[in-house]
């Protein structure tokens, strides 16, 4: 689109951009110590390594603390309404396959109000990356239980705990057809950058669940850094085995847990007819 620079290949050895080039310089609204800073850093580092220029990348989000992220990066962005980031991103990618589309958001946005879109985005398998910053709490509305909150976590709105079985996003993703399922930790931006890069490059819908502590409403999540560990297993293709893995896991295994081989939705077709041809169908003729 008016650019003359050579388009870098996906596996180029050199790096034309630094992580800083992907920062808008705007100051995040996040609390000091929030895990989302680590995800922002991971994204900037991953994109610098990817080698695509900021204007070729679109970050799409819904509503919540983590959904503020597109404003903090120097790429194109779409900060939409609560829970609807995935369909927006799908509309972008299907009409503009040349763009790198990354969706970001939180657990309430993606698993509760946007839960249906999550399932169907996995089914559709459009080539993009979905990063969920999961802190098991609604932070922006100041501390209500989300779909991933432990059943006994006490809060003003659910005294004594919500009493519900937590949502298992990885199992849902595997069962619904996501082509890449991984878990990362916000406290390890370099490890995250690798997972992000890997997810972007893997064809189809890549889902990356990031444990991103909310130090304000869930200070106990500071302990996560002591609990995370690399996953001993990474499943290829076999969805039944991957489902067993993510259902049995305690939620602290990091890394790529599943890679599928589904073909992504095809590119837009080339026009074969014109609107004038369409109009002729209505002519009564003779």
């Amino acid at each position, binding site marked *: *689109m*008016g*650019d003359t620079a050579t388009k870098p290949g996906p596996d180029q050895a050199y790096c034309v951009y630094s992580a800083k080039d992907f920062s808008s310089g*705007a100051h995040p*609204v996040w609390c000091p110590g929030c895990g989302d800073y680590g995800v922002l850093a991971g994204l900037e580092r991953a994109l610098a390594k990817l080698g695509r*220029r*900021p*204007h*070729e990348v*679109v*970050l*799409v989000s819904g509503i919540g603390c983590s959904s*503020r992220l*597109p*404003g903090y990066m*120097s*790429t*194109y*962005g*779409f*900060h*939409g*309404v609560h*829970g*609807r980031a*995935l*369909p*927006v*991103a*799908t*509309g*972008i990618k*299907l*009409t*503009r396959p*040349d*763009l790198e589309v990354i969706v970001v958001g939180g657990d309430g946005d993606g698993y509760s109000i946007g839960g*249906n*879109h999550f*399932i*169907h985005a996995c089914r559709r398998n459009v080539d993009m990356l979905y990063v969920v910053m999961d802190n098991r709490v609604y932070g922006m509305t100041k501390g209500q239980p989300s779909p991933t909150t432990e059943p006994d976590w006490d809060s003003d709105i659910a005294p004594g705990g919500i009493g519900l079985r937590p949502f298992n996003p990885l199992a849902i993703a595997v069962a619904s057809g996501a082509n890449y399922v991984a878990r990362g930790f916000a406290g390890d931006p370099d490890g995250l950058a690798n997972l992000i890069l890997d997810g972007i490059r893997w064809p189809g819908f890549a889902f990356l669940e990031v444990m991103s502590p909310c130090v304000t409403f869930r200070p106990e999540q500071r302990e996560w850094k002591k609990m995370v560990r690399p996953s001993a297993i990474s499943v290829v293709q076999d969805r039944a085995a991957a489902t067993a893995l993510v259902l049995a896991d305690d939620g602290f295994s990091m890394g790529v847990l599943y890679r599928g081989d589904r073909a992504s939705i095809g590119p*837009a*077709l*080339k*026009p*074969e*007819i*014109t*609107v004038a041809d*369409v*109009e002729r169908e*209505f*002519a*009564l*003729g*003779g």
Partner: protein
Amino acid sequence: MARKSIAVVFAGSGGSGAMSAGAVFLRASATAGYYGMMTQLFGAQVRGGESAALVQISTEPIETQPDHYDLFVALDWEKVEQFAAEIPLDETSAIIADPEAGAVPAGIAKSKGRMVSLKMTDPHVSRLERALHGKRVNMFAVGAVCALIGIDDQHVRSAIENIFEGKAADLIAANMNGAGAGAAAVPGLTLNLLLDPAVPAARWLISGNQALALGALRAGVRFVGCYPITPATDLVEWLAPHLQKLGGRLVLGEDELASINLTLGASYAGTPAMTVTSGPGFSLMVETLGLAVAAEIPMVLIDVMRAGPSTGIASKTEQSDVNLAIYGAHGDAPRVVLAPVSVADCINTAEYAVYVAESLQLPVIVLSDQSIGQATTVIDPGNERPKPLPRRTNGVVAGKAFKRYAIGPDPVTPMPAPGTAGYEWVAEGLTHSEVGLPASGAGIHVAQINKRAKKLQKFDPGKYWGESWGRGEVAVLAFGSTIGPAREAARRLAVGGNPIRVIALRVLSPLPITAIARALDGVRRIIVVEQNHSAQLYHHLIGQKAIPPSAESVARPGPLPYRPSEIASYIV
């Protein structure tokens, strides 16, 4: 004496072939050079319910349902009575039925229409052939009706070939034979239904839903996000393969929330995009309608209205989404609301809707309804099309940092498509600063509200505001599917020396106040006609001071269509 028009009903149980009878009859009449319109009535069952094809044929264009039907053809009598209220018959009507089909149901017989007995089986068909092709009498009926009104056999044959294209050759032959036998049986009937000769011309056969889709394609729409919903589904089913061949894409969302967000994403990425729905789906989409306003992203939303509220009557018409279209959304959410003035006008109104959305970077809603959308009509395709109004993607001031939501003299600010270097911006639904970062300051909030409101203040639809016919001192103001019956009522009253003006609104919001005032010049009595209980358009017009408080309101819900006589009798 020959007549200028005739209104015919083919009715029967599901599987009797009433719809294909109507389709063949309409196409045969159209290729013979007549104008025509067909609407359909269905029972609620997916399969096996009663159905009726309502077809009008005329030497003049048809834009309304008739006061009564001239001819009722019963393919069988099963459950047909359920439609009695929607198929007005009177003592001038003729009712054709096979005596073997049994007794005429009371609901039909009470019309006092003249019963005409016609044995609808082809005497030349063997029992084997009947076993192979079923006992359908629909093509026999079509052949008979065409012969009665004077449509040549060649048009019937070509219509059968067209409607049954792709079907087995022996089925097509059986249908041709059936129609031929029907025509051969006519000389035995004492029934004069001859029409004035037709004047053939290069016309189109198109439904309102197809016409809206075509207009959108003409304007460059190449992405549609949608979810199935009656009575809008046939629009997107027609669009899907055509969009594909045109290099575009139709995506079936998981719900209407997804559909409108898919659409908005595609539009943000630079492709003119549209979503298509009906009332219940529109209700779900309202959330993102506000986002399109705040983030200033063009999109078109077509609402093929049906009877509401809630699930209402899926397959039947009403004009009761006016308030939702004009006011639906929290906050101040300026948008443009248009309505087609006829089936033929669906093409231009949809094309214009896309241009308005693209040029103003806001959502444009097109309010159609089941009555227009599912009416298959013979139209004279116009040569005139709306002038394209492109999206503003360039025009950044040299030497200045790019501000997507800049406050300045022009409220429409450039929106470069993603992929354009140097203009990376974030589409933002929160109150935002000029560069598009979330902000909650009072000054910024008011400035951005004013920016978006100014787009409507500067919007001038010019001649696309609406249409006006006649010069009487009494004016009927209408929109969408009530325009046709209002015009027919006006024509009849004019013949009786009572000139009536009909004013049709294409732009429902923002109201074209000046154009309406001009159209009302010299009018002493104003009657607003609409098909909803709460007089939604009337209150909108009064509230915006487009009409004086003395204006009268004729408002009643669907699903029964307005008939010309109903409007005429109110006026006089």
